[in-house]
């Protein structure tokens, strides 16, 4: 700017050339971004605006002519809806069990495999395999394993207490769902933790050992604090994913002859997104469903924010590589 304002002709020419070049650079930048820019406008920003508008209407998914504005009615209804409250409660219960246990398992696997072990490649593959199995396949794996007729789980328990006949998916659906989710996510988290472990210089642990720390103390006071940023990352990702869980509870619905869009999981596995899904795709309450989903989004944002705010107390960013 100041260069262009100067009266000397030569530098003004240079300024124009410079401005032209930076304009061309910006153009190149936006050209590379163009797929995302157009995509964001049409497939993210516009839908979000539609979803927000929808949540203030009684839209039924069919007739745009008969849409009426209902103000905040969908939101007040959601807050008073006993099914929504139940679904939210089940989702939160799932979150507070699956996230800590799940991250714990991922961490334990990584710590175990980080040692010098024979067949460590094979072991890594075994733990990673469930992560690669698509959700439909994984659901079948657990349906079959817990099947009261011909399932292996009851047979194993039957060795200790004969004539066991537990209908797992009916009596303990949330237990099966939690185990399924933890099992499927373990391998992915393990790989991330293993990478995190490799980033910790060996000298730290060696120094602690020379000072007489036991292996447990090294893990507790050296390795875990240094891994805390990775733990934090996995907790945040886990919280966001568990709050949105939908396909797994639907696919684990008892009854083995298959499922349709209207399948309702057992009451214990009736999760929040499942409630919104039912409202929209089964009962055609698009406006109400949209309001439920916005409430969920607010909850996800709030919990993420709380996690970030409280992370200073336990996440250790002392050593940067």
């Amino acid at each position, binding site marked *: 700017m100041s260069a262009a304002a100067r009266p000397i002709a030569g530098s003004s020419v240079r300024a124009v050339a410079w401005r032209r070049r930076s304009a061309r650079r910006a153009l190149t930048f936006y050209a590379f971004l163009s797929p995302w820019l157009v995509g964001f406008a049409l497939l993210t920003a516009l*839908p979000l605006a539609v979803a927000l508008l929808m949540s203030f209407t009684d839209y039924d998914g069919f007739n745009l002519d008969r849409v009426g504005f209902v103000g905040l009615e969908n939101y007040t209804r959601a807050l008073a809806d006993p099914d929504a409250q139940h679904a939210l409660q089940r989702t939160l219960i799932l979150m507070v069990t699956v996230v800590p246990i799940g991250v714990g398992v991922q961490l334990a696997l990584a710590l175990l495999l980080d040692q010098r072990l024979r067949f460590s490649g094979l072991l890594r593959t075994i733990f990673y395999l469930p992560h690669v199995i698509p959700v439909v*396949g994984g659901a079948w794996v657990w349906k079959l394993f817990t099947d009261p007729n011909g399932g292996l789980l009851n047979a194993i328990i039957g060795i200790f207490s004969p004539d066991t006949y537990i209908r797992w998916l009916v009596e303990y659906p949330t237990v099966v769902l939690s185990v399924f989710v933890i099992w499927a996510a373990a391998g992915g988290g393990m790989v991330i933790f293993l990478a995190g472990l490799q980033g910790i210089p060996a000298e730290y642990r060696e120094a602690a050992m020379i000072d007489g720390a036991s292996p447990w103390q090294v893990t507790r006071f050296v390795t875990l604090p240094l891994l805390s940023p990775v733990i934090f990352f996995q907790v945040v990702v886990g919280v966001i994913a568990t709050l949105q869980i939908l396909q797994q509870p639907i696919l684990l619905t008892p009854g083995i002859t298959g499922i349709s869009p209207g399948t309702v999981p057992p009451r214990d596995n009736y999760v929040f997104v499942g409630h919104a899904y039912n409202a929209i795709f089964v009962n055609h309450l698009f406006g109400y469903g949209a309001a439920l989903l916005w409430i969920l989004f607010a909850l996800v944002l709030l919990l993420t924010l709380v996690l970030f705010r409280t992370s200073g107390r336990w996440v250790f960013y002392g050593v940067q590589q």
Partner: protein
Amino acid sequence: MRKYGVVLALAAIFSLPVVWVLITSIKKQSEYAASPIVLFPAVPQWINYQLAVTMADFPKYATNSVFLSSAYTILVVITSALVGFGFARHRGPGRDRLFLLVIGTMMLPTLVLFVPQFVMFARLDLTNSYWPWILWGLAASPYHVFLFRQFFAAFPRELEDAAEVDGCGPLRVFLQIFIPNAGPALAASAIFAFLWVWGDYLYPILLLNDQNTTLAVKLAKAYVDPRGNPLQTITMAGIVLYVLPLVALFFAAQRYIVRGVVTTGLKG
């Protein structure tokens, strides 16, 4: 020795349910729910695999799955690499805010976006077709953009400088210098994209019909005998056939995947 005990016990817990699927897939249906439980089939029933293929018109739905997954994968890898390259190696007003927007959209609950998209696709008569996946592919995906940005940001500056001195335009720099050196990122991105479509159950069931749907949807509806009773053994054979190619693909490219995961997951 104690550490082997723990690891082996965990490995058994993790793999038993999968092993049980494999064993069930070669049992006779009469052996499935027999009491006392049949651990191994008297005679392996390999015919279950043949029945799994013929009873569900497996080739047709496998073709649907392969086509849809490949189309989405090719598009999303190309567009996301372009966008990721733009964010990593070019400058323009608002770059950091735009990138924050990319990250922000990754936090949106899937259905918040999908429900209005579904309404729009239905209005435009794009349901019952593969168009939604084509459009998602053309629009680039935040996860893949993030992966490519992280990957390209680590390249040394001299690469482009030398090319620009030689008179290379930005697109040629991208195509002839960056892409040939982006093998791991391309492989990771492609496999994640393929896996996503191949494994997804929700969008096909909501957007497609019984004829053009994918294997994931078809196989979730079990194989049944003429009286409507489920045939678990044949279903398991079908599930194995559905999962196996994916597992093979994944482990063939294991190194790249791990590097891709680590790039996106850690170097935030």
